[in-house]
């Protein structure tokens, strides 16, 4: 906990979401979401399934379209303009529950593809960057294998490295450990903790409460498409205010 508070949070604003609403057909998934994220902040979003937490972070890089309100990422307003969307996406890295590596490319090619084509980095330089980040996630020796030859935990770490190769200013994690075995969860969480310690702005949908306690400086609880409660981890876990949060925490921490 002490560690988390040491990590600096600047006053600069990274993401501003105001009065954002989203519907799937007639179903109101996200209701009046207001959220400001400062640079360097590490936010954990939790809540029961179907509460809209994944949808919320997928709206931030426009994988999902919102119908009302505004999202501003790094000073760029998210509109339907494709150029804006691509610009935001290249600044925002994302890791998925099912990794979504490209199975027809090697690990190294997975990592160099976006820098080469989106950032127009020369191939050699992109490969050096990729190897740097693969070393960081501790799998440089797998660089020439295909994703199908790696374990789930390794694949997720490659996915993190692939995002990092774009040098993103913000990282989004959509339940990065929920498709993994317990042993592999740790190796992925360790990678994420390391990333947090370097001051990356992170929004993480996860049920790993230990991770939330250790690195988050804010925990957000969502239910029925709304932010029900947000607080510092210590206060959030020890002294939840709303009855809905209390029930949720008692259920997931109860065993």
């Amino acid at each position, binding site marked *: 906990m002490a560690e988390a508070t040491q990590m600096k949070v600047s006053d600069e604003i990274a993401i501003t979401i105001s009065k954002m609403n989203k519907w799937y057909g007639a179903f109101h998934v996200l209701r009046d979401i207001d959220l400001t994220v400062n640079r360097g902040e590490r936010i954990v979003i939790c809540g029961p399934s179907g509460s809209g937490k994944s949808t919320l972070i997928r709206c931030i890089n426009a*994988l999902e379209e919102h119908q009302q309100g505004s999202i501003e990422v790094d000073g760029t307003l998210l509109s339907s303009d494709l150029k804006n969307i691509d610009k935001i996406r290249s600044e925002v890295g*994302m890791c*998925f529950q099912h990794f*979504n590596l*490209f*199975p*027809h490319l090697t690990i190294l090619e997975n990592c160099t593809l976006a820098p080469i084509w989106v950032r127009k980095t020369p191939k050699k330089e992109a490969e050096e960057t990729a190897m740097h980040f693969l070393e960081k996630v501790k799998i440089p020796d797998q660089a020439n294998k295909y994703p*199908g030859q790696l374990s789930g935990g390794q694949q997720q770490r490659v996915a993190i490295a692939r995002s990092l190769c*774009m040098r993103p200013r913000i990282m989004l994690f959509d339940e990065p450990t929920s498709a993994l075995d317990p042993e592999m969860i740790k190796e992925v969480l360790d990678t994420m903790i390391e990333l947090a310690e370097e001051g990356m702005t992170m929004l993480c949908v996860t049920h790993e409460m230990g991770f939330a306690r250790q690195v988050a400086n804010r925990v957000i609880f969502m239910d029925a498409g709304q932010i029900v409660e947000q607080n510092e981890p210590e206060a959030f876990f020890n002294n939840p205010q709303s009855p809905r949060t209390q029930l949720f925490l008692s259920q997931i921490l109860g065993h």
Partner: protein
Amino acid sequence: MSDTQQHSISFVRTETLPEREPPYAASGPVKWMRENLFATIPNGILTIVSLYVIYLILAATLPWILNGVWNTASLSECRDVLDGTVGACFSVLTERWNQLIFGFQYPEELYWRPGLAFLLLFVAAAPVLFFDLPRKLLIFTALYPFIAFYLIWGGTILTPIVALVGFVAAGFFWKNFVARSFALGFFGSIVVAFIVWWLGGFLISDTANENAAMQAVPSRDLGGFMLNMMLGVTCVSLSVPLGIALALGRQSSMPLIKWICVIFIEFIRGVPLITLLFVASVMLSYFFPPESQVDLFLRVVIMITMFSSAYIAEVIRGGLAALPKGQYEAADSLGLDYPQAMRLIILPQALKISIPGIVNIAVGLFKDTTLVSVISMFDILGMIRGPILASTEWNGVYWELLGFAALLFFIVCYGISQYSQWLERRLATDHR
């Protein structure tokens, strides 16, 4: 073995037993036959019955083939030579070889030109089919259509050059303007190509073809298996890209593009190919300006390409649908734009899934090129049914001729099939 036993029954081996051959019945052909041919009684009966059937087939065909006659001038001469014994009259193949391969109107002294074009086809196709080859060879592949056109049709060299310049100008325009706007790059390059071709038309005088170094051969003089190969190669190589475009168009979020593609695909799939070919040969000229002489070969290529591209589009749509949504999302989340995501992530995977289906259609298309014989084009089947069987010398030689045509098609189709299986193994990287 437990510890106690080891202690009570002590044993030390002092010499190594030499290796021995397995018993005869457990190895070699006897074992193989026992396992595969005579495993059970019904199995054994089936084996014997099958052997008998194979014997019957070979007993009927082998003498016919081996006793075949290869060098007579007519069927009656053949019968004289055979003198009542069973035997094929293969002399029709040797005597009419040129007609079967090149048709009956292609000038005999020019046979080397399509022959050379055929050999160059392998050079041109190699870098496309085997992508481990150096990429620079693709330059030849890009030039090949113009070279082949010049070789087969002859005439003034200006025709293929103007066509090539049109494509190069269009490509140049595309490269420089597509970044600004896709629509500008796309439609602009089409307009540029047509302007070049229109201007180039003035360069080519009406008499250019008559005085050309390479004697001009009109399309109606093409025929034989050469015509099948030309139609097959042209239509397959055009319909795959068109099919990809249609499949992507059908998934487009722009309603106009989507509905154009849907209507095209559904309409073409709902019409028999024969109907389209009749439209090409008879009715299509009503749609072109009266004075324009659009070549019959070109009209047929357009129709067959449209037909097979509709089918290929549906096969590729299946491949696209089989990809997990996460692949699109991962491509998007890395900031790849639509053309990049399609070219680098989605299509390589979707096409790989679609290989068996695409090959299926390519093989079908190649065989369907024989349908042009019904619109009086003399492809190999047209040659057999028309000039050869109708001639007095060879009236009645069905098995040999049709068997030969079948063999030619089988060789090509089996080759395509083997290639596709190699390709699937080569691309198997996902280890699922």
